[in-house]
């Protein structure tokens, strides 16, 4: 029988009992919808990480000081993670070819008669970008899918250079709001401001920024800020040696874990951290990679995903058995029809094709309905998972494929049974 005629025959078979058919597909609908929702959760977690850590490259290890609360203040735990720790890292650690240090603190900023108490960031030329990304900000109105480059953050002038950082030059870059407050609309570029009574030349102003996360925009003030070369900040703005954050660039992305081990060994040696009796080290620092962050984010979605996956599997099996059941009933009800078809020349494979196609059409119909339900479910899943759910476009063909396979698998037995009927018996069937 030609494919077209098989299809028409199968469609006719299904449509003859529309209510029963629709109810049968319910399991498939739920199963397929769960597949879509599950993948949306995973996809959402991935997208959230990618958005929040756009600048923490997959070849970078971020090293932070361990902190403790002492006398009402956050203080370094153990030995301080110093600028020198970072400066010497590339030569001491084979897998690290570059390290960028940042430091933060607060200072009094003055220009003319305007003063401002401000949190400053001492950074490398490149680490500045990392600082911005960890603030989880973007230029105002930046489209979420458009990639960001460093220069997109500059409003006026420029960033400081590696040479200026190495030399500890007294230059600085202002946040958008800070520049407005201090200069009240005058051009700040080239002017001298005073940071804790140290003169410093303004060479750039950042673009107006906003928090990535809409809900955070009320509480965060990304446009207040002062960026200085890290060396200048450490020498002039602290009474005691401050702790820094180090971004280590690893030479081989496939050796992140080895690199972390090497960095740990290097820092333990510098900080004199002995191996504890339990074989562990009482480290005074911790390391983060993009993989770590990704893993943590996905962990939170994983529990929910697991639940949905279980629901998907159970629903698909139940749906598949439902289809098998309705097909078995159908084969039994239509025994005589099968006998007639065989008498006029239908071969076994013609009968298999007819009933298998009916099963697949049933499950495909359920699949399409399930995809629609699944897409509608994504916003609900997002609201239950802190906004982390995003429809994965690949999940639609995947879910449809799953529904087709379900139909094939569970339709096979009834179809084979139909094809193995004895035409003489089938023709006699009442």
């Amino acid at each position, binding site marked *: *029988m030609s494919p077209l005629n098989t299809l028409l025959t199968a469609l006719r078979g299904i449509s003859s009992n529309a209510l029963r058919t629709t109810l049968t597909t319910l399991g498939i609908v739920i199963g397929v919808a769960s597949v879509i929702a599950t993948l949306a959760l995973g996809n959402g977690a991935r997208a959230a990480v990618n958005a929040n850590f756009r600048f923490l490259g997959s070849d970078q290890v971020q090293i932070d000081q361990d902190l403790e609360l002492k006398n009402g203040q956050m203080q370094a735990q153990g030995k301080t993670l110093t600028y020198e720790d970072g400066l010497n890292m590339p030569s001491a650690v084979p897998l690290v070819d570059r390290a960028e240090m940042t430091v933060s603190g607060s200072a009094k900023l003055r220009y003319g008669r305007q003063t401002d108490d401000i949190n400053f960031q001492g950074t490398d030329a490149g680490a500045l970008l990392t600082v911005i990304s960890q603030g989880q900000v973007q230029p105002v109105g930046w489209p979420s899918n458009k990639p960001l480059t460093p220069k997109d953050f500059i409003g006026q002038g420029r960033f400081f250079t590696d040479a200026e950082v190495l030399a500890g030059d007294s230059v600085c870059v202002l946040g958008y709001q800070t520049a407005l407050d201090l200069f009240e609309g005058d051009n700040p570029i080239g002017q001298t401001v005073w940071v804790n009574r140290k003169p410093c030349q303004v060479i750039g102003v950042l673009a107006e920024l906003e928090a990535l996360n809409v809900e955070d925009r009320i509480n965060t003030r990304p446009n207040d800020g002062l960026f200085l070369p890290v060396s200048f900040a450490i020498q002039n703005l602290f009474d005691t040696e401050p702790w820094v954050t180090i971004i280590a660039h690893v030479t081989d992305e496939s050796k992140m874990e080895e690199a972390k081990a090497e960095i740990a060994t290097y820092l333990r040696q510098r900080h004199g951290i002995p191996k504890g009796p339990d074989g562990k080290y009482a480290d005074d620092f911790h390391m983060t990679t993009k993989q770590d962050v990704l893993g943590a984010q996905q962990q939170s979605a994983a529990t929910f995903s697991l639940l949905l996956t279980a629901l998907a599997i159970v629903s698909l099996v139940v749906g598949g058995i439902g289809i098998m059941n309705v097909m078995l009933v159908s084969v039994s009800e239509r025994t005589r029809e099968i006998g007639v*078809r065989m008498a*006029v*020349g239908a071969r*076994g494979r013609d009968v298999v094709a007819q009933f298998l196609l009916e099963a697949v059409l049933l499950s495909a119909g359920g699949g399409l309905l399930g995809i629609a339900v699944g897409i509608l479910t994504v916003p609900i899943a997002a609201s239950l998972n802190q906004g982390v759910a995003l429809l994965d476009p690949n999940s639609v063909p995947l879910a449809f494929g799953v529904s087709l396979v379900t139909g094939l698998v569970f339709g096979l037995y009834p179809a084979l049974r139909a094809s193995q009927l004895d035409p003489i018996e089938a*023709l006699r069937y009442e």
Partner: protein
Amino acid sequence: MKIIQTENLTRTYAVGSSTVNALRGVSLAVEMGEFVALMGPSGSGKSTMMHLLGCLDTPSAGSYWLEERDVSKLSKDERAEVRNNRIGFIFQTFNLLPRLNALENIALPLLYGRHGGDVNKQASEALGRVGLKPRARHKPNELSGGERQRVAIARALVTSPALILADEPTGNLDSKTGAEIMRLLVELCAEGHTILMVTHDAKVASHAGRILQMQDGEIVEERSTDVTA
């Protein structure tokens, strides 16, 4: 040409531990254009004979040549093909598919196997042959018994088979309608179709050119009739 030739056709069934000899070595020849009636009480083996001749079943022993081709040892699929191409079936209970209209029922054999040409046109011609053109779009439940059997006959004709097998074709019809159906079969025979009919009704059988009487799995009597209309 001999349309049917059987030699020592035997069919046994296993029923529990014993075997039933439904057919005990029947040898039969039917020439092209013949109208043969197969008579006998139930259990005489005429249905078994019909199933074997219709390639719905295979013999336990013996041979069967259809159009001089040995079809007694064909596979399931090969038999389906023979039924599709070379044999038309007419049943006592018509066996039309209830969801298909008259034309679609007639076209059914054309959808299986390799038949060229315009399916609708061929089905329509067959419908015309049995005089039911205006009923083409009617479903079986919208047709009278006689009309249903005419549709079934058209379905049997549509592939231009070598042999038409009719199993009690008038069994579910009143005598007037039954007579009409018999007239149609006799006409078809006159047009060159070879028909083998199973019946227990002597009056119906009298339309055939040759009557075979079966008993206990054997042909026990054979006689020719001169009544053909």
